[in-house]
């Protein structure tokens, strides 16, 4: 199952809920009215958040009408960008970075744990329906490799033990606090040398 192909089972209808509508209004204010279709990307992301992390066709149509632009244009945008999921994913959508720095620091072990704990294949929703995982390219947090992203949060400086805890918590729908798992703050260096000098 690919996240970039339109899913077989589509909901009939979609419309923004009150919260999303308010946000959509705010988003529209950022663009001149004659170019309101520029808001297509944030609105698609808004729809994705509202609809359990994926965008159904009905949402694309809804957004197209909302911004008075052709369906195909919204469809083009939604299929182009990797962060839009066009098929259902878990409530906790785990993206494991497997680009070189993370891989050197043991991302393959995280992938292995995902396979064991969540589902044997990528983009497959776990049996209890809460999680799914995917391998992705660099998420720009190489300094705290290996890492993974769960929905909008980064879990950094992982090892096997911590990853296992995180995955368990996600499966139980009680996610742990995101951030560094070696206690670092803002990717600062961990050790201060005995002479008191800080090392960048």
């Amino acid at each position, binding site marked *: 199952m690919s996240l*970039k192909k339109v899913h077989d089972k589509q909901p009939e209808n979609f419309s923004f809920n009150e919260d999303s509508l308010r946000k959509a209004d705010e988003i529209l204010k950022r663009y001149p009215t004659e170019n309101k279709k520029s808001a297509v990307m944030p609105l698609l992301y808004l729809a994705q958040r509202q609809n359990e992390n994926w965008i159904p066709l009905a949402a694309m149509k809804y957004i197209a009408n909302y911004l008075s632009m*052709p369906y*195909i244009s919204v469809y*083009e945008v939604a299929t*182009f960008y990797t962060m839009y999921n066009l098929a259902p994913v878990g409530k906790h959508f785990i993206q494991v970075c497997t680009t070189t720095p993370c891989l050197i620091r043991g991302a393959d072990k995280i992938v292995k744990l995902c396979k064991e704990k969540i589902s044997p294949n990528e983009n497959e929703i776990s049996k209890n329906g809460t999680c799914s995982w995917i391998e992705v390219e660099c998420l720009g947090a190489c300094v705290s490799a290996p890492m993974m992203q769960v929905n909008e949060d980064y879990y950094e400086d992982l090892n096997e033990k911590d990853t296992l805890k995180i995955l368990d918590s996600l499966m139980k729908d009680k996610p742990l606090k995101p951030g560094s798992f070696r206690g670092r703050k803002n990717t600062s260096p961990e050790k201060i040398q005995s002479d008191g000098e800080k090392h960048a």
Partner: protein
Amino acid sequence: MPKISINGKEIEFEKGMTVLQACELADVEIPRFCYHEKLSIAGNCRMCLVEMEKSAKPIASCAMPATEGMKIKTNTAFVEKARKGVMEFLLANHPLDCPVCDQGGECDLQDQSLYYGVDKSRFVENKRDVKEKYMGPLIKTQMTRCIHCTRCVRFATEVAGVPEIGAIGRGENMEITTYLEKSMKSELSANVIDLCPVGALTSKPYAFEARPWELNKTETIDVMDAVGSNVRVDTYNWEVKRVLPRLNNDINEEWISDKTRYSCDGLLKQRLDIPYIKINNKLQKSNWDEAIDLIVKKIKNLESNQIAGHVGDMTNIENALGFKKLFEIFNSKNLEFREKKFYINPDEKINYIFNTSIKGIEESDLVLLVGSNPRHEATMLNARLRKTYLQKKIKIYSFGDPGDLTYPYEIIGKKTDDIKKFINMESEFSKKFLSTKKPMIIIGESALELKSGKYIFEELKNFLRINNFVNNGWNALNILVQNASTVGLTDLKIFPNQKADFSFFDKLNKKEFKFLYLLGSDNLEIKKNGEFIVYQGSHGDKGAELADIILPSAAYTEQNGLYENLEGRIQECKKASYPIGEAKEDWKIFNMIIKKYGENEKVLKFESLRKESLDNVANFSEINELPKFNLTDTNKITTEFFSEDVQIKELNYYFSNSISRASKTMSECNHIRQKIKKTGTNN
């Protein structure tokens, strides 16, 4: 004018041109895939790379604006290497299945790879495979061949005005498709086949029919509507295999409508090939002698006012003149060509043509449609309206509701009272109209068909004349007729009398005619009641169904003839093929009747028919040119006003004439339009 140096040759160019256009001025050919004169610039195929002085990298000439003092080189080893590199990338994923590809022989990629292709590929990975897409009954897809030039996407969005094609995915996974693989809801959809530089989009009805070099090409015109699009008819032996557009910037630019292109399979079906005579209420095969004998016998037994003739929608001027001469021999004046009772004033030329001209639309600053749906009645003209809307954002208004026209417009009234208010300067809109410099009014047949038809036309004309919008510089009065023959036959005065009233229809309804001669006329509504009907035409359609005698004649691709398009432009339709079976050209059939009638000295000759018909055309200037402008000071015509709805009669676009009704492709299009799903019983 600024100057640019191309391969050392200095050349002047207009401001705003691109390097590629400047190169064309210097007669230097630049290879290209994505660039097309009539579409916006994409610059994504990179085939048009050229060398520019002071630039370390080659530049894409189609997207680079030309500037003063630029030095361009197109014939250096550097350029060749760059283009070869681009070509190698384009061919990396291209299947190279030319032997089984319909584009073979007229493929841009094939032609250009001859000059820039490398003899072997360094691409050892697997080629990507893309699934076929469904794009409707006209377009066959083989998307593995696609090189992503996006010409089709730009055409659909810009020219056709139905943004339904797009590129989904990205990089290696990019695919061209219609939204959810539905067929395009456009009358211009098949033009993407011509635009496609490779074999990704090819013609479905023409699939594996012939190779381009086997076909005989005839440059002719189209008669499916009154626009007179310039086309090329390709034939294999006598069979018309396909119809393609010909460039004519005054009329159809580079496009033709789907009906023009795909009605041609109707030329092979339902054809009348030998004369038929109705015996015991059943049509029986017969021969020419018998049929002509019977006709002449019938006519001689009748009084001349009991004989009537109706000329059809695709009849050329010469044949219509021959028909008129035949009726002069019968001493009958009961001639008509209109299918519906719409008002027409044949006194002067500007009364029945599209005076602004199709190209002139681009100059206008306001368009008012009166009871007309140009999208279905004259598709190419509608494309020009859309083009003008896109370029100048002109305001378009309509009396009556024509539905989706591919551009926004405002309905300013649905009743004739609104038109009256406009004419009497009682509405806001009148002032807006008068404040513009080059407005135009397009009056459709639906408006002229109303009881107030005469009022609408004469008063609008008067309104325009008073306000000086009808003159040699700008003529805002336009009539949009629907049939290819209408303007020409109005010039020939194929009417029962000078006034062009509806006496023919009245007499027809009162059953005063005992003998009705239909010349290719299938759209006339007749309730048969004892009349003797002769149908002369090419297809077994509505007319032939009623007929007592059927005379088979040639279709428009099978005889030479002149047609006058809605602008009053005379164009020649040329013979591309031969009439089927025993069918003959229309004027030859008249000659058989004339001889049998005993008027041997009045036998028609084609050359003299042509000469005489050109003499009959009012304000004629030259073949392929617009007529001269001439305004005679006619007396004011008294008109009567009726309050009624401006109903725009829906034209069944894919089934508007006997050829398109016989076409399988057209009926498939119609099925899809009406959302009738195939039941599967036909297979």
